[in-house]
């Protein structure tokens, strides 16, 4: 599969179909994958494609304006490109989407560093309940999509962690999140890694008006995490990058999933399904629920 990808990349660069290709190369540790930016056909040899290609490369698209970019994507990454297109952040004609059949990616945090030859791969949480295997659109497809038997265990509920939390009392939930957020060091890694957090000036750094504390305290940490979640409401496509990048292990996906679940139930809306779809919060329906409004 990597070979097919390399050949295609060489072909594209030789024929000047693209200026650069954003893909994955083997990281210095020889195990994980790191993003790479390839603009000559010799470099195309570096490209790889396997279960270690965890990163969502869509975050890099905005760094190369006015260039024809080839990008290697998984099905979930493609959804974030869909949202970027929807919000006019990238131009479709500047993109050449190389969709690769996804074998499911590993959970980096649960990788055993002592046993690199381990047979059992621990898949990322998002992959275990991933339902889509066919990309909605692409320019080049590497290898036919096929379902990995180890993934998508039938009947597995993608909202299970959310439901578990919902079942707790409100005081218990507050205690839980208070302790989770108390670890937050406000490094904003969740924001930097997110392909959809692209504001040139983030509200967290804004001073006039400053909406919440920049310090590490309950008030600031809670406000930041609520703000991040609200700004991704109806846009988050659950690539799980925020949770992966979080150095203190806050379960950010559980927050994203909660909002995803609510908007599915309340507004019958799912993010990243099609480019033509209007963003959730810039449209409305006259029959939207309003049971809490007096």
């Amino acid at each position: 599969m990597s070979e097919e990808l390399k050949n295609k990349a060489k072909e594209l660069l030789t024929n000047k179909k693209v200026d650069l290709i954003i893909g994955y190369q083997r990281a210095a540790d020889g195990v994980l994958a790191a993003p790479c930016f390839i603009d000559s056909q010799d470099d195309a040899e570096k490209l790889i494609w396997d279960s270690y290609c965890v990163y969502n490369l869509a975050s890099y698209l905005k760094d190369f304006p006015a260039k024809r970019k080839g990008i290697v994507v998984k099905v979930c990454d493609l959804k974030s490109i869909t949202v970027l297109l929807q919000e006019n952040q990238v131009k479709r004609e500047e993109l050449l989407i190389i969709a690769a059949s996804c074998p499911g990616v590993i959970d980096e945090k649960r990788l055993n560093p002592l046993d690199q030859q381990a047979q059992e791969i621990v898949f990322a949480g998002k992959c275990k309940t991933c339902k889509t295997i066919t990309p909605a659109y692409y320019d080049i497809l590497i290898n036919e999509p096929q379902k990995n038997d180890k993934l998508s265990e039938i009947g597995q509920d993608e909202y299970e962690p959310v439901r578990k939390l919902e079942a707790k009392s409100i005081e218990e939930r507050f205690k839980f999140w208070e302790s989770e957020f108390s670890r937050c060091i406000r490094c904003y890694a969740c924001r930097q890694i997110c392909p959809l957090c692209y504001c040139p000036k983030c509200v967290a750094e804004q001073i006039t008006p400053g909406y919440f504390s920049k310090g590490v305290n309950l008030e600031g940490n809670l406000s930041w995490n609520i703000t991040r979640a609200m700004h991704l409401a109806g846009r988050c496509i659950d690539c799980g990058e925020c949770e992966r990048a979080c150095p203190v292990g806050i379960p950010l996906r559980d927050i994203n999933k909660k909002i995803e679940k609510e908007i599915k139930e309340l507004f019958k809306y799912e993010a990243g399904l099609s480019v033509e779809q209007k963003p959730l919060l810039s449209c409305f329906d006259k029959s939207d629920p309003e049971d809490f409004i007096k």
Partner: protein
Amino acid sequence: MTGDRSEWEPKIVGFLCNWCSYAGADLAGQSRLEYPPNVKIIRVPCSGRVNPLFVLKCLSSGVDGVLISGCHTGDCHYSEGNFHARRRFTILRKLFEYLGIDPKRFQMAWVSASEADKWAKLVKGLVEEIRQAGPNKLGHR
């Protein structure tokens, strides 16, 4: 601000739309209706103007409750501002609940310019609910 519970009075911030709710509250005053003075009113052009960050800023500054009030759906001066607000704050409220923040502290209402009675009743009820919820421990003071 004293920490003594017995002296504690709920502090509520109300974001009222210029065209309906603000006029409604004004009418309540002109009609000499009596209701608790706990709501500090901030006049906004439309309920759609209210940013979730305003609500967060209030709660994290130690305000005990936030109320957003606007025109009834279909009556918005800007045709659709309150529809947008409704969607946005439905999500925010669900998120508050999930994170363990008492949803009583964040409320919304539609009050038209002629509904002075509704406004007075609303504030009475709201103050009672927030009183039960107790002081907001979230924010710095």
